[in-house]
């Protein structure tokens, strides 16, 4: 593989199609989507509700499979991998941030952060503690998630997503479930921890502030991915 090309194209989506069936009705959510994302790039995905943004994110994250097409990440065609191999690939290379935080309620804050490390065979507590310190939540490490505010939970979710040093972070409406001020705080954290570390981020949002975060804006409309200039987004 050409070294230059490998660096410039980290993720490649080739003719991705995905449809869902509801009763007898078939919804074609993605229609032969093509895209290339380069290393260190921050992509913001826009689109109306139900336009398929989250579906695309799930496909890139390998938690779902397209009906047709290929998704190549770092030279690996994840659509050709078995369920087990895809899980192992995801475990190592992908980090997820969700709108509703999705911390594991029966694990403490520290354990939540340690989980991806442990799954990757690393018991690097110092790294987890260091990140907790960076988001000013070190003193809450022994608490269970239900004791934390929404903003605090999301900060934990962010460090959980990047603690194991994945190549891509996928964020689905990370500020969608918190107030504006806390949302700004979350964006600051993301800026500091993800962007400045040159991580790849694909982010789904409706927020103008979050969109400003992007290197590139993409719009999903009628199952097709379109490029959008920053000026005409809102």
């Amino acid at each position, binding site marked *: 593989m050409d070294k230059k090309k490998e660096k410039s194209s980290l993720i490649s989506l080739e003719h991705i199609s995905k449809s869902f069936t509801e009763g007898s009705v078939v919804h074609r959510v993605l229609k032969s989507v093509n895209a290339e994302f380069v290393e260190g790039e921050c992509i913001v995905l826009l689109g109306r509700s139900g336009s398929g943004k*989250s*579906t695309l994110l*799930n496909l890139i*994250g390998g*938690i*779902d499979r397209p009906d047709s097409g290929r998704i190549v990440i770092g030279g690996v065609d994840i659509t050709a991998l078995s*369920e*087990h191999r895809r*899980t*192992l690939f*995801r*475990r*190592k290379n*992908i980090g*997820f941030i*969700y*709108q*509703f935080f*999705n911390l*594991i*309620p*029966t*694990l403490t804050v520290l*354990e939540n952060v*340690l*989980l*991806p490390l*442990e*799954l*990757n065979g690393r*018991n690097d*507590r110092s790294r987890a503690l260091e990140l907790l310190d960076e988001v000013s939540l070190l003193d809450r490490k022994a608490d269970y998630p*239900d004791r934390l505010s929404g903003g605090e939970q999301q900060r934990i979710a962010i460090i*959980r997503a990047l603690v194991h040093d994945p190549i891509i972070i996928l964020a689905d409406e990370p500020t969608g479930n918190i107030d504006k001020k806390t949302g700004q705080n979350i964006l600051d954290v993301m800026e500091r921890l993800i962007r400045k570390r040159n991580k790849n981020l694909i982010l789904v949002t409706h927020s103008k502030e979050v969109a400003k975060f992007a290197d590139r804006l993409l719009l999903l409309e009628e199952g097709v991915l379109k490029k959008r200039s920053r000026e005409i987004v809102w």
Partner: protein
Amino acid sequence: MVTPVLSRSIWRYFFRHPWVILLSILGVAIGVAVVVSVDIANTSAQRAFELSLESVTGRATHQVIGSPLGLDEDVYVELKLEFGEVASSPVVEGYVVVEGETLQMLGLDFFSDTYFSEQLSGISNEAMLSLILEPDTVFIAWKTGDRMGISPGDTISISVGGEEKEVRVVDFVGQEEGSTLDGLVTADISTAQEILGKTGYIDRINLILPEEGVLLASIEEWLPEGTTIISTAARNESTLKMTNAFSVNLTAMSLLALLVGMFLIYNTMTFSVLQRRGLIGSLRVLGATRREIFTEVLIEAGVIGFIGTSLGVLLGILLGQGMVKLVLRTVNDLYFVLTVSSFLVSGGIIIKGMLLGVATSIVAAFIPALEAASSPPQIVRFRSIMESLAHRLLPYLSLAGILMMAVSIAVLFLSSKSVLAGFVSLFLLVIGFALCIPVLVEFISRGVGSLMGKRTSILIKMAATGISGSISRTGTAIAALAVAISVVVGMGIMISSFRGTVDQWLGQALQGDIYVTTTSDVSKRSENPLPEDIVTGVMAMDGIEAVKEMKTVYVETASGVVEVRAINTIEQSKREYRLKEGDYTQAWGNFEKGESVFVSEPYAYKGGISLGDSVSLITEEGEQQFMVSGIYYDYSTDQGIVLIPQIIYTEYWHDSTISSMSLYLEDKADKEDIMAAIRAEVAGREGVVVRDNMDIRKSGLDVFDQTFMITRVLEFLVIIVAFIGILSTLMAYQLEKVKEIGVLRATGVTPRQVWGIMSLQTGFMGAISGVLAIPLGIVMSVILILVINIRSFGWSMQMTISSGSIVEALAIAVGAALLASIYPAWKMSRISPAEALREE
């Protein structure tokens, strides 16, 4: 008032998750089925016995009876001459074996003034004439004949005390619609006397008398010595009471299954409420009142209860057929010969089962209904708050449990001999302990979690702490399983202690090397005598050190019939009767001189008899009092035995025959040779068996194991109900954890790891159930052994707790939990992370 739309919005949850409703219906159904089947078995056996008594006593109000050897037939003639105005009829009765089935034989005098058995009314005059005039002719109950493929005119072979005889069946009796006659062979009195070897004797005289009156008093006064008159009703009642304790024990066991079923319903209803907290919250926000929500949840429980109970009743009727056979076998082994062809399913049983099932369902759903209705709308929506509420409730629940256990102990000490009070105490203890289980689970789960070091895998930690995190669900499931397992532990310890005690007792009571006995009881009143020439022949053999002779008869007392065993006293046999009370030297000294008798432990307990008291027995010399100088351990019958010296028996009953011999061999004697010699001696003589002590010991233990077969069946059913409880918990759990599993899968947890977490967690739940079941089971066994068993049967037994029963309980608990986890774990491992997260 619950509106149809509101109702629909709630009910559709069940249509989306049919397994929730199916599992709870199944749980209720099995719980109810166990209760109904045991009820049917008990009632059928009871009814069969009543019918059996009815068919032999007919309309007789009183009976004149004599010694175990019977009444001289002249007594009837004299009574007839003296009291010609009294309707009376002589009866000869005994047992015969036809095609391997033991049937009752009745010999009746068809010329007597009044015929007592109405069932014979359909018989033609010709048939009646044949029976009276032709020798060796019988009537047979239609149901029995039909079952055995016998037709009128057939010649059948009947075995009496091992001897075969040919008789001709003249006709059927009990052919009319609704007749319940079964297991009965009727013959003319002279034929019966000949067949049963009672020529010149009758067993009783049936009379129809006004209950209280001058006539009764006159007959009592007239009766010759050695005979007595008894009320048929009182006699039947005392005989029926024999099986009371046995029935109560079975019923209690079945109620325990329902109790576990109740946990299951509670679990299901709690889950269904928790699952729909969002829906209920939304409905409350929209304006549904607390009362409407409460009513709706209770209606749901009522409907589930009704469907489950209806199925349970049907299942119970099916199960009852097998159960009747088991109960019958136990009754036959322990009490009396019965033929239950009437499988009795009364309206009462069905109504009782229905009420029990539906009421239990509604009671079990009461707390979840209250929980759903009482929370403010916004709270209903958050599960973590619901869990916090559950956690806050735990101390109060435990307090209630501790109080219940305290009441249980109080009931135990305040009730003296009541079996029912013993069971009430046991139930209170079980429920009380079950209420404390959630807090113990919380403690153990958190404790184990914190004990796990930093090096322990987070996934393993999740499995442990997840139990405490969902205590509102896991607590009940673990409690249900723990109660079921405690039944296994408690009953297991009780049965093994009992078996151990019986085994030890058999070893001690069977000191003889060889036993020569008569095979079967032809008479209801005494065991067949051993032929005199055999007795003399055996005694003259070489190599025999001593012989214990015994005669067993059934003697009338004020409290019913009692088994009396008459023995000669030899040194060797003294060791066979281990005294519970009484000084060995003094007791045996008096016994040998014929000055006192011994009674068995159950007889003493039930009759409240102490050393120095007297027992009253009707003898050929009239009613006599015998002083008790020893109370001995005996586990052969819970009805009790009076052991008397042979000299007393010969003197007062005028009978010198014996029905069994125990031979104690000389040290150098060859047992096999002697057995062969005795077998040669008795060859060709039907009805005499020669067995060695090991053989008798083995068959004694076989009977024991057969008796407890029904208990094992009930135990198994209790575990099935608990298994369904765990399964339904895990299914609901899986539904709740969809998103969490989705996140784990997205983070890189493989399906196999999900399966692993789930199995580990369930195995842990099983292990906690097992660990908690052990103390409860042990306390349960203490109550069963020291209270219920003694109050029911009068037997004391040595309690032995084997490590085997503890390990078995733990294995069943973990095994049942893991088995129940297979399907939910498989489903969880197949959760698509994309689907799970899309639910957002």
